[in-house]
């Protein structure tokens, strides 16, 4: 099961956000990191794949065009986790994860409860199961949102800045879990992420978009070079390439300081 994107266009109102994105592929068992500056269209691309934003072009999953599927049918195969998971809903953590499961499949109560329990255990959220969403910290809520995604068991999982509210411990824990999830279950995972060091460490493949256009895609080694970083982010950066470890990027300066 491979995700392919070709000639994808998307407009929000009269503003065109994605321009002819083509040649993008995400493979099962791999993590693809979607990187690019603010406003590049990363969230819009993920929403377009999920069917939340209307788009034109070709999106195929396992050779089948996604545009032929209704939103309901599409979201049985894939799941989009938005960046903003804040809510004041008077729902317990368990109820929220059960909700994610129940909106996807019709099944026995026992099967649903087991799936929820497993998703909560996966992210060590069982101690919080009875807490209300409104009473959680931003990071806890983000982990609950990831548990909601996991409970649905999608074939394609798209996460928009999934670690933005997490502390360092939970960032590594969650990304490590997602990596194992991709490897062991053949799930396609696409992450929109700003932390390039995390992208270099956990992603197999990078897609770079800027101003709604596909700039480059490839492995972290191919994409994360000082020249490319200057082109994408307008920064000077030092890229360290250890022999037995992931790349390490140290941003040095912005090539265009504010006000210049």
């Amino acid at each position, binding site marked *: 099961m491979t995700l392919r994107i070709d000639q994808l266009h998307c407009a929000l109102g009269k503003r065109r956000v994605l321009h002819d994105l083509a040649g993008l592929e995400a493979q099962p068992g791999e993590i693809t990191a979607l990187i690019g500056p603010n406003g590049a269209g990363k969230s819009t691309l993920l929403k377009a794949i999920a069917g939340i934003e209307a788009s034109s072009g070709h999106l195929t999953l396992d050779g089948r065009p996604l545009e032929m599927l209704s939103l309901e049918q599409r979201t049985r195969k894939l799941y989009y986790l938005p960046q903003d998971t804040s809510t004041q809903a008077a729902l317990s953590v368990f109820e929220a994860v059960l909700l994610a499961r129940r909106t996807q499949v019709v099944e026995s109560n026992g099967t649903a409860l087991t799936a929820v329990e497993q998703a909560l255990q*996966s992210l060590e959220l069982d101690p919080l199961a009875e807490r209300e969403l409104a009473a959680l910290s931003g990071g806890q809520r983000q982990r609950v949102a990831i548990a909601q995604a996991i409970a649905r068991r999608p074939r394609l999982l798209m996460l928009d800045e999934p670690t933005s509210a997490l502390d360092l411990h939970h960032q590594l824990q969650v990304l490590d879990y997602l990596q*194992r999830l991709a490897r062991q279950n053949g799930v396609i995972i696409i992450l929109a992420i700003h932390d390039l060091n995390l992208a270099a460490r956990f992603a197999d493949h990078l897609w770079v978009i800027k101003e709604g256009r596909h700039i480059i895609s490839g492995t972290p080694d191919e994409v994360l070079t000082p020249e490319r970083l200057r082109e994408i982010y307008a920064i000077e950066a030092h890229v360290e390439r250890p022999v037995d470890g992931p790349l390490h990027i140290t941003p040095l300066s912005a090539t265009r300081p504010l006000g210049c």
Partner: protein
Amino acid sequence: MKATTFSPVTAASDTTVGRYLARQRRQRWLIAATALATLLSLLLDIATGPGAYALSDVMQALLAPSEVSRVLQVVVWDIRLPVALMAIVVGASLAIAGAQMQTLLNNPLADPFTLGISSAASFGAALAIVLGFGVLPVAGTLLLTGNAFVLAMLASLMIWGLSRLRGVSVQTMVLMGIAIMFFFNALLGMLQYVASAESLQQLVFWSLGSLSKASWGKVGLAGLALMVTIPIFIRARWPLTALRLGDVQAKAMGIDVGRLRLRMLLCCALLSATAVAFVGTIGFVGLVGPHIARLLVGEDQRVFLPMSALTGALILSLTSILSKTLIPGILLPIGILTALIGLPFFVSLILRSRREIWR
């Protein structure tokens, strides 16, 4: 990280599930207790009036009508039971409509009154009372109900139409609802200005809210609106609950948010239109009922919906008793009482609540 695969849990402790099931049992007990309290209130409402009866007499009149006096039989079955049942049905209708509008618009102050749906219905009713004008080709009681329903639908469609515009937030929708309320209130004021003394009196009395004109036919129609809409809400219980996580998350779960809003707003319009058409303006039940329900059982629609209906029914039933007993010999308009009791109760609920339910 314990589990790493999607395989079923084989040896999982059921502690988490067990705690969830215990929470579910607590919620169900609370619903059962509220249902019992509502039933007791219904009986008390029947027993209360110019001639007070013992609860045992009321029970006997209800369960074995042939064994009680003809007078008691008539008082219970023909006069008080329709009124008491109307309080239950209208209370439940307004609270369900309020609960769902708060859910649909993600706003704690949304209810049929604050969004102008009731004002539109009131204007429709006034068209019938003052001008004898019918939007639908019907006559009699249905003229007023038909007008109220069509105008309430119109207001709901206006709110829904706004929700379809890109960039319009739910907050904007609520503000537009308030604008709709002022618009129909202005039209209502205009009709009051040109109304004859008799129809003005009728209109004022109607707008104060009263259960006293309840009949079996009206109870049946209001009950029918409940019976039509409740299954629709039950079928949409998961999508409605998902909506509380925000539009994007709901869409990510495969929910057609626009269609859901339209269907549910139309159901809310039907409930509020029938309620307003039969009993006039009764405020705060649609606000307070859902808030109490939310504090007691949370917002999982499987429990939130029945709890909202029951708290609304209980509040209006208790208010009905109060309207007959507060000043002996005088029947106070119920709409005045719900406002007088509901407003401070609502404020205290907000102030005393330790949880910030709404941002």
